[in-house]
C-alpha cells in the first residue's frame, strides 16, 4: 500500500484503527521526497529528525488511547514564510538564508497542538513575490504534472509537495492568488480564507492588508481539515476576526456525495472576468457550469464594473505595503549582511542590494515611489479609493448571489522561463484572483478538469466569513465531477 496516495482522512482512519503508525506514515513521505530524483525541489528545508520524534509521540498517544488532535500524525508542509521556532525560515531569499527564528507563528502552534507533523519548509517565490517559484533564491520548484512547467506561485513548493504525495496537507499564503493559482496549476484544492480568519502572527508579510494564510489538500475535505485546524481568533493579531459565525463546517467529509450542497445556490459569473479569456478555458468553465446547474445551482452572468481595475489597484497597494514591510530587512539584527561597508547607510544599501532579488527590489522601488509625496502618492491614494469601490461591488453582488465563479487562472501552468523575463506578464497572471484579496473575501480553487492535458481549477469566491458557501460549492463540484455529471 502506498501511504502517500491516501487522503488525509484515510490516513487518519488508518492511524486511529492502528493499521499504520505515524512513524510509518512520516517515513513513507520522507522516502517520497528523497526518491523523487526528478528534482521537484518542493522543499527548502526538511525537518526529518524532529518530525520523526513528533510522530513517535503521536504513536505513543495512540497506543495509550489519549485524546488526539485534528491533525494527529499527518505529514504537513509549511510555506517558508511561516515562522518556525528553531527551524530555518528563509522566505525563499538569500536575505534569510541562515535565519533560524526564536519563535513560532500562531498557525504553527496550532498545528503542533493539533498533533500535526511538520515535514519541512516548502519552496516559494522570494518573499512571496512571483507566480512561478522562479524568483526563489533556492531555485524553482517543478510541477509534478509536467516537470517542464512551473507549479505556480508564490506557494508553488507547498502545492507541488501535496500534488506529488510528499505531504498530505500544506500551508501557503495568498496575497493575490498565491494559493489558488498553484492549486489550479497542480490539480489540487487550495483555499484562501477570508481576511482575519487565520492569524497572521509569525507569517512574514508581503502586503499585510492582503495576505492570508491558505491551505492545500488533494481534495476539498482534506483542505477543510487543514483549515479547521488553523482558524480562529488570535489576540496577537489585531486584524484577527473575533467571532466567526457559520464559518467552518467541521463535520467529517467522508466522501459521500451530497447533491444538496449546491441546490438553490445562486452563482454569479462576472463578465469582467470573461473578457479576453482563452477559448479552451472558457469551454472548460462552461462544462463546469453545466455540472453546477445539474446539481441545482442557478448560474448567471453578472457585472462588477470595478473589477476591471482590480489588478492595477492590487499592484499599487501591494507594492506600497511591500516597500514598508521589506524595510526591516536591513542586515543589522538578522539576515544577510554585506561583508564590506564604510558606514551605516552603506551597510543598509549593500546588504539589501546583495541580499534581495530583482523582483523584490522592483516592487520595493515601485512601492517607495508610490508612497513618496514627491512621487506618485496620488496613484496610491486613488488605488485605496478604487479598493473601496471593488469592496462595494462585491458587497452588492453578495446581496443577490451566494458565490461568484470564474476560472482560477486564465491559463494553465506555463513553462519555465516563459514569463520570468517579463514581469508585467507575470503580474497579469493574478487578474482573476486579486479581487478576493482586495475585498478580504474567501475563495477556493477546485480541480475542474484538464485543458490540453494540464489541470485547471474553478474559483468560487464567497462573501467575507462565509467560508461555508465556498466549501459546499467545492464539495459539490468535486463530487459532481467524480460521478461524471
Amino acid at each position: 500500500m502506498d501511504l502517500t496516495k491516501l487522503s488525509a482522512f484515510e490516513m487518519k482512519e488508518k492511524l486511529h484503527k492502528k493499521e499504520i503508525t505515524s512513524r510509518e506514515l512520516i517515513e513513507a513521505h520522507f522516502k517520497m521526497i528523497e526518491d523523487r530524483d526528478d528534482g521537484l525541489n518542493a522543499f527548502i528545508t526538511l525537518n526529518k529528525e524532529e518530525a520523526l520524534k513528533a510522530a513517535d509521540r503521536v504513536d505513543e498517544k495512540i497506543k495509550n488511547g489519549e485524546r488526539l488532535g485534528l491533525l494527529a500524525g499527518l505529514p504537513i508542509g509549511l510555506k517558508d514564510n511561516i515562522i518556525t521556532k528553531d527551524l530555518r525560515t528563509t522566505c525563499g531569499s538569500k536575505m534569510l538564508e541562515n535565519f533560524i527564528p526564536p519563535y513560532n507563528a500562531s498557525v504553527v502552534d496550532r498545528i503542533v497542538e493539533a498533533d500535526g507533523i511538520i515535514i519541512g519548509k516548502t519552496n516559494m517565490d522570494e518573499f512571496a513575490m512571483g507566480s512561478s517559484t522562479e524568483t526563489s533564491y533556492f531555485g524553482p520548484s517543478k510541477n509534478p504534472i509536467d516537470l517542464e512547467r512551473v507549479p505556480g506561485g508564490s506557494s508553488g513548493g507547498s502545492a507541488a509537495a501535496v500534488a506529488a504525495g510528499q505531504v498530505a496537507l500544506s500551508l501557503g499564503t495568498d496575497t493575490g492568488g498565491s494559493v489558488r493559482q498553484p492549486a489550479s496549476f497542480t490539480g489540487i484544492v487550495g483555499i484562501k480564507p477570508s481576511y482575519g480568519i487565520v492569524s497572521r502572527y509569525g507569517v512574514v508579510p508581503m502586503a499585510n492588508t492582503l495576505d492570508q494564510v491558505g491551505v492545500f489538500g488533494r481534495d476539498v475535505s482534506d483542505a477543510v481539515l487543514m483549515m479547521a485546524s488553523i482558524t480562529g481568533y488570535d489576540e496577537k493579531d489585531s486584524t484577527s476576526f473575533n467571532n466567526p459565525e457559520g464559518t467552518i463546517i467541521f463535520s467529517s467529509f467522508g466522501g459521500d456525495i451530497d447533491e444538496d450542497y449546491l441546490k438553490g445556490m445562486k452563482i454569479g459569473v462576472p463578465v469582467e472576468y470573461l473578457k479576453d479569456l482563452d477559448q479552451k478555458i472558457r469551454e472548460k468553465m462552461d462544462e463546469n457550469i453545466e455540472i453546477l446547474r445539474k446539481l441545482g445551482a442557478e448560474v448567471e452572468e453578472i457585472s462588477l464594473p470595478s473589477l476591471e481595475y482590480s489588478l492595477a489597484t492590487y499592484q499599487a497597494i501591494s507594492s506600497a505595503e511591500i516597500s514598508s514591510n521589506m524595510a526591516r530587512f536591513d542586515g543589522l539584527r538578522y539576515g544577510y549582511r554585506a561583508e564590506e561597508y564604510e558606514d551605516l547607510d552603506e551597510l543598509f544599501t549593500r546588504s539589501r542590494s546583495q541580499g534581495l532579488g530583482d523582483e523584490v527590489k522592483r516592487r520595493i522601488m515601485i512601492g517607495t515611489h508610490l508612497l513618496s509625496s514627491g512621487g506618485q502618492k496620488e496613484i496610491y491614494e486613488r488605488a485605496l479609493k478604487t479598493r473601496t469601490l471593488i469592496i462595494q461591488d462585491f458587497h452588492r453582488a453578495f446581496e443577490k448571489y451566494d458565490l461568484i465563479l470564474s476560472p482560477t487562472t486564465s491559463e494553465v501552468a506555463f513553462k519555465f522561463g516563459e514569463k520570468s523575463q517579463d514581469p508585467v506578464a507575470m503580474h497579469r497572471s493574478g487578474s482573476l484572483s486579486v479581487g478576493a484579496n482586495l475585498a478580504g473575501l474567501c475563495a477556493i480553487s477546485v480541480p475542474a478538469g484538464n485543458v490540453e492535458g494540464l489541470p485547471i481549477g474553478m474559483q468560487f469566491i464567497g462573501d467575507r466569513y462565509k467560508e461555508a458557501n465556498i466549501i459546499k460549492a467545492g464539495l459539490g463540484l468535486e463530487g459532481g465531477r467524480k460521478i461524471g455529471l
Partner: protein
Amino acid sequence: MGYKTIIGLEIHVELSTKSKMFCGCKNKFGKEANTHCCPVCLGLPGGLPVVNRQAIEYAIKAGIALNSEIMKNTRMDRKNYFYSDLSKGYQISQDENPICQGGYIELEEDGKTKKIHLERIHIEEDTGKQIHTDSGDTLIDYNRAGVPLIEIVTEPEINEPEEARMFLEKLRDTLKYIEVSDVKMEEGSLRCDVNINVLDENTGKRTNITEIKNLNSFSAAVRASEFEEKRHIELLKKGEDTEKETRRWDDVENQTLSMRTKGEASDYRFAADGDISDIDVDREWIEEIRRNMPELPDAKKERFMETYKLSSYDAEVLTAARDIADFYEETVKYNGEANLVSNWMMGDVLRRLNQDDLAIEDTHLTAKYLADLINLVKDKKINNNTGKKVLRDIFETGKDPETIVEEKGLIQISDQGELEAMVSQVLDDNPQSIEDYKNGKDRAVGFLVGQTMKASRGKANPQLVNKLIVEMLEKR
C-alpha cells in the same frame, strides 16, 4: 518696533505604562540591555503590533489635562525611514488623525496670563537606544524600542526663551501630576526639540525656521534658544537669512551646530498601518477617565490659597508637584498649622530635597514626623534652631522627632533656677561685656545671650535667657 522671537516646541514624553506600546514587554528604564524584547519590538519578521489600551488611556489623560479635544477616531500610521535604532524600518506613529487636537497651557507672567496653544498630541513608539563604546563600536539596546510616547506639538506662540522654560516646567509638572510619565529629562522620558525663527517687525521679514535637537535639560533649551535668537537677529541686521536646517545643541561649547539642512530632509512616506485597525475612542471611556482625573495644579493652587490662606507664591510652590502638595496637606491634617507647615516646607524641607535631588517619598521624613516636629517648636519644647537640627537628624536617621530630642537631650531648658545659674556664670566670665552694657552698648546683650546658648549647648530657651540677662545685668 523691534525683533519678535517665535518659538514652537515639540516634546516627546515616554508614558509610564506597565508594558510597551504594541507588545507585552515590560516598560522599564535602566535594565540590562536587550532583556525586555520580543519578536514584535525587535522587528523580527512576522511580528505584529497590538495596541496597549493603557497607553491610549494615558494619552487621553494628557489630552484632558492639557485642554485638548480627544478625537473619536484615531489612526496609527507608519513613518518610514532607515536608522540603526529603528527595528522595523518604520516607526508606528500618527500622521493625519492624532488622538488629540488643540489644547493649551496657561502661563502666569508678571501677574498676567498667557495661553500657549497646542497643535496636537499624538501617540508613537520609541526607538531603541544607541550606545557608542570607547572602542568605536555602536551597540543597540532595544529595551526602549516600542515604549509608548506622546509627542506634544505647540503652536509657535512662545516669544521668549524664558517662556519656553516656563512652558516646559508647567508641562512637566502637569504630566507628573496625572501620573502618565516620569518626565525625567536625564533618563530621556521627556525630550524636547525647539523650532525657532525671528520676525523683524520693521520690515516684516522672517528668518527661516531652525530646528534645535539634542537638548538634554530645560536650561539647555533656554540657552540654545537664546543663542539662536541672537544668531537670527544678527543675520537679519546684516540683511541675511538663516538656513532652513536642523541644529544640534553643544552643551559644553554653549552653541548650536548645524546637523543637516532641510533640503536633505527625508520624505517619511506616511501610510496607514494596516496591522492595526482604526481606534474608536468610546465617549463614555473618555468621561470615565475625566471623572477619575486628579485635581490639576491650577485648581489645587486656588484651593490652597482659599483653604489654607496661603499666598499665591507659596500656594504655587507647594502645588507644583503632587507629592509635595499631598505631603503638605497630610502634615496640616496632623497639626492644623497651615502657616507653620508652609514655612517649614518652603524653607528647610524643599531646600533639602532640592539639594539632594530627592523625592520626598524617598526620604525618611513623614508627614507625621514633620507635624510633630513643628508642634515641639510651637510648644517651645525645643527652640527653632534645634528644630532645624532635629529635621536634619530625621533625614539622616529616620527616627521620630521625640526620640531624637530625648536621646540627644535637646529639650529646651526653661527652668528659671538652672538658667539663672548659667547666666550668672557667663556674666562672671565676661566682665568686659557688663562694662560695655553699663556704657550703653546694647549689643553686649546679644553677645551674652550667644554665650549662654553656647554654654547650654543650644538647649536654653532663648527668649527666657534674654530676659534673665537684662534683669541680672541691671542688678550688677
